[in-house]
């Protein structure tokens, strides 16, 4: 009696284990069995700002007989669940700062990497991207990236999505203004036909810090790059050009030697030399170097190991291994004054920052407005970004205006002269305002639908490809983004190094999608 009871319990437990195993394989939850092939059932997870898109994708999938529903999440909760492998398909996006797939396709798709929420793994892809990262020969790198793109296209770990163009606007009185792909707002180069104060309406609700080494946020950098310069900078379309550095050489694949421009002064009056450059980089590299805390910007420098002063105006950088995107990373490290920081301390420096950029800090608050005034002793900036010399406007103010409608209202009312991020639906009407100029620039963020490649149904490449054929991106993007979005063939951006322009995006082909689903054993409409 007792034994049979125990056996009963054991069989109950065994049954539960089998049920759980089936459940985890997706048999019970995802795809109920049917005589003529199973119906594919998917849940499309998205954040609220992309709800319309998720609904549209679900409608396209339902049209071919997939049972699809959209569900809305808060981002961190969704990401947490996706990383654990609990989700099926999810709308995500990922930005790139290097104009190279190094910080886009690699972290997103290399086996086990930090951004690989789709749990995609293909050793051939890993080999290709690793090859592109360990050599500095551009031809070898390009070939490797081309190969990686072909592999991705076939594997289709995502429903490949799109990138957006970023639209900004300025008042007509602003001259020589051009939005930049890396979101820099270079107020040194702009002039005003009327007035001497330029106010920028920022899309963020706060800058994170006034210390250029203590944040990892693009908008904060946008503000700070008007007070701080780096060894190198970028043109608006992503080319690296010298700034504080006069020139550089690469005596070995892993060594860079920079000559520093003479006669550069910090806002405090100190002259800038090799000591300040070395100090600025050590501050970022060394753990706990900023008042006991470490800089979150270290990763930007890759395998940089050592920064040494060669003479008063020469600095040598030695890397542990070749890092082909090193110069792109350098753009994001700003030079700070060694003597000043050592005198006043890191906290005081973050309150009253001193740089060598075209504007000096006057006052303000991170979540309100940050006010700067022209630095008259400015060395002139990058010769590749004319005009040289001190800034044209006397005062620059960055105002935090997170609400897009209010930013545009302030622009129209003349309270601000430049605004970030104009929503597509407002851009069209704003273009008709003759007091305003509207310009767009290619964005550096990829938007996609990631598929959980580790579990059924999306561990089958045929099903993943079917999803790519089933979504009518042209219609979705036109409806939601009004022509400001461009459909992508893979996870590579045209603005990044090694993009293969011959690879065309998956076309909208529901018939092909249905064929592939049938092949994979699913019923279709």
């Amino acid at each position, binding site marked *: 009696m007792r034994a049979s009871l125990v056996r009963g319990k054991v069989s109950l437990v065994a049954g539960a284990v089998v049920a759980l195993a089936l459940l985890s394989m997706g048999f019970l939850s995802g795809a109920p069995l049917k005589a003529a092939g199973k119906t594919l059932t998917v849940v499309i997870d998205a954040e609220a700002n992309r709800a319309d898109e998720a609904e549209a994708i679900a409608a396209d999938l339902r049209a071919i007989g997939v049972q699809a529903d959209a569900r809305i999440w808060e981002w961190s909760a969704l990401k947490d669940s996706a990383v654990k492998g609990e989700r099926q398909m999810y709308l995500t996006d990922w930005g*790139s700062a290097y104009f190279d797939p*190094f910080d886009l396709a690699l972290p997103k798709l290399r086996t086990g990497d930090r951004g690989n929420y789709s749990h995609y793994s293909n050793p051939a892809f890993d080999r290709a991207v690793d090859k592109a990262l360990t050599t500095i020969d551009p031809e070898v790198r390009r070939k490797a990236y081309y190969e990686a793109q072909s592999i991705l296209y076939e594997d289709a770990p995502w429903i490949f999505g799109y990138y957006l163009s970023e639209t900004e606007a300025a008042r007509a009185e602003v001259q020589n203004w051009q939005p930049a792909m890396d979101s820099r707002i270079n107020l040194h180069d702009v002039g005003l036909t009327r007035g001497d104060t330029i106010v920028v309406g920022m899309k963020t609700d706060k800058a994170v810090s006034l210390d250029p080494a203590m944040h990892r946020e693009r908008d904060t950098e946008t503000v700070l790059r008007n007070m701080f310069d780096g060894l190198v900078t970028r043109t608006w379309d992503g080319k690296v050009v010298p700034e504080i550095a006069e020139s550089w050489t690469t005596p070995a694949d892993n060594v860079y030697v920079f000559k520093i421009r003479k006669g550069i002064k910090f806002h405090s009056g100190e002259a800038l030399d090799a000591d300040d450059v070395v100090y600025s980089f050590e501050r970022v590299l060394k*753990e706990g170097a900023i008042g006991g805390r470490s800089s979150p910007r270290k990763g930007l420098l890759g395998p940089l190991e050592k920064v040494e002063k060669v003479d008063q105006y020469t600095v040598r950088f030695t890397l542990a291994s070749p890092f082909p995107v090193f110069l792109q990373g350098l753009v994001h490290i700003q030079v700070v004054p060694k003597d000043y920081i050592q005198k006043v301390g890191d906290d005081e420096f973050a309150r009253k920052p001193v740089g060598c950029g075209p504007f000096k800090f006057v006052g303000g608050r991170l979540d309100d407005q940050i006010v700067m005034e022209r630095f008259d002793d400015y060395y002139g900036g990058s010769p590749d970004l004319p005009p040289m010399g001190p800034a044209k406007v006397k005062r620059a103010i960055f105002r935090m205006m997170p609400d897009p409608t209010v930013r545009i209202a302030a622009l129209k009312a003349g309270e601000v002269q430049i605004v970030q991020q104009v929503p597509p639906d407002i851009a069209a009407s704003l273009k008709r305002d003759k007091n305003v100029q509207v310009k767009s620039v290619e964005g550096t963020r990829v938007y996609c639908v990631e598929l959980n490649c580790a579990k059924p149904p999306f561990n089958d490449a045929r099903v993943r490809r079917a999803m790519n054929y089933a979504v009518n991106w042209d219609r979705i993007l036109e409806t939601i983004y009004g022509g400001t979005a461009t459909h992508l063939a893979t996870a590579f951006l045209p603005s990044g190094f090694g993009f293969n322009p011959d690879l065309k995006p998956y076309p909208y082909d529901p018939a092909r999608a249905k064929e592939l689903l049938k092949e994979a054993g699913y019923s279709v409409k």
Partner: protein
Amino acid sequence: MRRTHVQILERVLATIPIALGVAIAVFIFMRLMPGDPVDIMIGEAGGVTQEDIHALKTELGLDQSLPVQLGRYLAGLVRGDLGYSIPSSRPVAVVILEALPATMELALCSLLFALVIAVPIGVVSAVRQRSFIDRTSMAASFLGISMPAFWLGILGIIVFSLHLRWLPTSGRITYGFEPATITGLFTVDALLTGNMPALWDALKHLALPAATLGAGVAAVVARVVRSSMLEVLRADYVLFARAKGVVERAVTIRHALRNALIPTVTVVGLQVGTLLGGNMIVESIFGWPGLGRVVVDAIFSRDYPLVQAAVMVYALTFVVVNLATDVLYTYLNPKMTL
């Protein structure tokens, strides 16, 4: 009277366990939420490696077990150390003290705006029940309750800032007008230092957000004043006052309104909570650098120390406002005790 003082002191001391309880509850709830502050901060930034992420977690002590983290946090609290905000590395106390005056100024002005409008409307509506004024103002108050702040705010900006150009679209004060800091409330500081241009500029910036935030409160208060006035006006002592031959205006104000204010004070006390907590939308629209925006942002970035401290500030404000409400009761109705 002495007894009242002792009771107030007791109530103030009682806030200590409340603050502690709130701190522990928020500490636990924040960590139950999925997502990780370091991941949100640098997890998707260019060039970051898994090692960088682990190193930063270790530096911030987030790799420790929860009891250890809680212990460290409470030990810090006892010393008056609220910790550092995770993404910005700035002291939490500084972040909060910087944002608090802006929120308080906005809340107080909204409240003032609401009371100045709502009490007379409520009184007149009750005295002239079912009149044209009554019907219009009650319809308007219904609209005020129903209208969402983001819509009302943007409407106000379009009308008063864009078309009429009377008021600025957003911000707290024009650069260059800031008064010397005494309390951190620009209007008060400007008055104290006799800085009239600053006062005028601050008031212009305050007008739209305060009206937007105050509209909902005004609507609620007007309805409460009206209904309690209606009740009181039918009470025997009002009839008696009238029978004594007291002038009607004095009856309304001294006898009726004072008693009708008791339920109103309760409602206003509750609304102060709404004004402090529910203003993140208004703060976002008007680029108002207050605590609401700080908290929302901190929640999304899982900035544990900042959320914990800010919620504690909210909780303490609630307690203090409740206490003030109770003290006010005893003043309005001496029969009541704390």
